[in-house]
């Protein structure tokens, strides 16, 4: 657990980068720090692993004040990923990934097993990449290796500063999805900086929105989108916020809330499965070719018909209610 208690940061020269921030990241939670450039995201993140001093207040990491911890030992228990990957050009991929286990004195066998596991996890063939150097990899591959390196000693906490920010949109989307899969397996407590609201909504269990060093809103993505705390939040998430929120829901969520229209064999309708995001559903429905869709479960049983009216009904329910999830 990471708990920020009245945290402020004043840089030399008087810039107040963080202004009395309070929030908690629970164990296993994936929290996105978001806000405009210069709002203090990086500063806040770097105070956790003490790459920056805390001017006022404290950060409690797993029941210990980070100020009181031994910095070197603490950092080895925190995975750290940065935008420009920060891989060491002089080391092979294996040496890079195994840097923290090496510092911790793991034996050769344990390191090798861990390397193989991590490379499989990030989708790179261990033997093919073991002896390569960072410059021999693409940007996306380097960033994956950066993630593997951060995970190497199995730290309970991960700090990630715009890890996919420098990648082109297609690769970025791919890595986001891969990382969500990885998180399902490793279940870390993650603080992840982003400036992209779509990324935040898609990835985060919760979103912390900063502005000028102050916390504007800390809540579930659906709440940020449906119930912005103030005009700034509302403007930041964009006027299309309800549309954005549709990627938070799957067909299954809708089926749980509203009942589908009944389906007759004679109806012409495209099939969708229950895991499809509502955003895709809307897009399909707006497409000329299909004004209705038929929902199929995993076995291919047709459960009923889905129309724009039903999506609208569902969204109205979600937007109006304040669910305490």
């Amino acid at each position, binding site marked *: 657990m990471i708990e920020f208690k009245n945290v402020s940061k004043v840089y030399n020269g008087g810039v107040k980068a963080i202004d009395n921030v309070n929030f908690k990241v629970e164990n296993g939670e994936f929290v996105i720090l978001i806000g405009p450039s210069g709002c203090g995201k990086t500063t806040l993140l770097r105070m956790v*692993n003490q*790459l920056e001093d805390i001017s006022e207040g404290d950060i409690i990491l797993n029941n210990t004040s980070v100020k009181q911890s031994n*910095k*070197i*030992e*603490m*950092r*080895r228990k*925190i995975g*750290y990923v*940065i935008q*420009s*990957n*920060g*891989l*060491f*050009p*002089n*080391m*092979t991929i294996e040496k890079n990934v195994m*840097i*923290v286990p090496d*510092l911790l004195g793991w034996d050769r066998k344990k390191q090798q097993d861990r390397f193989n596991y991590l490379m499989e996890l990030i989708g790179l063939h261990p033997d093919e990449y073991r002896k390569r*150097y*960072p*410059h021999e990899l693409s940007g996306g591959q380097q960033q994956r290796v950066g993630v593997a*390196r951060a995970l190497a000693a199995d730290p309970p906490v991960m*700090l990630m500063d715009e890890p996919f920010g420098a990648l082109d949109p297609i690769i970025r989307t791919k890595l986001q999805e891969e990382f969500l899969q990885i998180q399902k397996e490793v279940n870390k407590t993650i603080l992840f900086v982003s400036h992209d609201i779509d990324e935040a909504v898609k990835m985060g269990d919760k979103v912390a929105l900063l502005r000028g060093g102050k916390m504007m809103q800390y809540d579930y993505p659906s709440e940020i989108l449906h119930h912005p705390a103030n005009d700034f939040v509302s403007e930041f998430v964009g006027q299309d916020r309800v549309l954005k929120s549709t990627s938070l829901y799957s067909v299954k969520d809708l089926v749980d809330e509203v009942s589908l229209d009944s389906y007759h064999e004679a109806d012409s309708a495209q099939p969708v499965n229950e895991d499809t995001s509502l955003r895709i559903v809307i897009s399909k429905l707006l497409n000329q070719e299909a004004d209705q869709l038929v929902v199929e479960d995993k076995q291919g049983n047709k459960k009923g018909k889905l129309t724009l009216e039903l999506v609208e009904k569902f969204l109205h329910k979600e937007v109006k209610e304040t669910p305490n999830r």
Partner: protein
Amino acid sequence: MQTIIDFFNYFSNNYSQILEYTVEHVQLVGLAIIISILIGVPLGIYLTTNEDLAGTVLQISSIMMTIPSIALFGIMIPILSTIGQGIGFLPALIALVLYSQLPIIRNTYTGINNVDPNIRDAAKGLGMTTMQRLLKVEIPNAMPLIMAGIRTATVLNIGIGAIAAYIGAGGLGSLINQGISRSNNTMVLVGAVVVSILAILVDYLLKYIEKRFTPKGIKN
């Protein structure tokens, strides 16, 4: 034509003497460079942590470079005479060490300072100690520049080392020195050519060593 014939005649008649001078020369320069590395590299690294001192030290060492070698030898004679070492090997060694400092300190300092701040940040964030960062990340990545500085200093020292013969330090400068006082142009020429060849060979050798010492991942 006659010059060339004289050159080779002199060379073959005085083969062992030339070799002896060459060995002396290499010993002087070699020892000077080893001492220079032991002083310059740690100093260059230390200066990256002390910006104010860095400016001063780099300035002093560039002023050092502008002092003509003959003047430097001259200055050292009275100083070292107090311990009975006014001329000979010791003053020559000290002068060469002083001349080597600028290229070695400056290149080490620049090399370490130029290591990508993101890489340094990652090293810190992953929990490396200052020493681990230096040994595992900063020095390896600064290696090409550090080695270039050592190479410059060595070639420079081979040249300046020839002048050290004037204060009785021996080496290939003795050929030039004696040649001038005896008006023997051939001797001067042999001395100059051997010094040049030595400089070129050593430069190649150091380039090879540089290649071996540069981590594979940072060659281009």
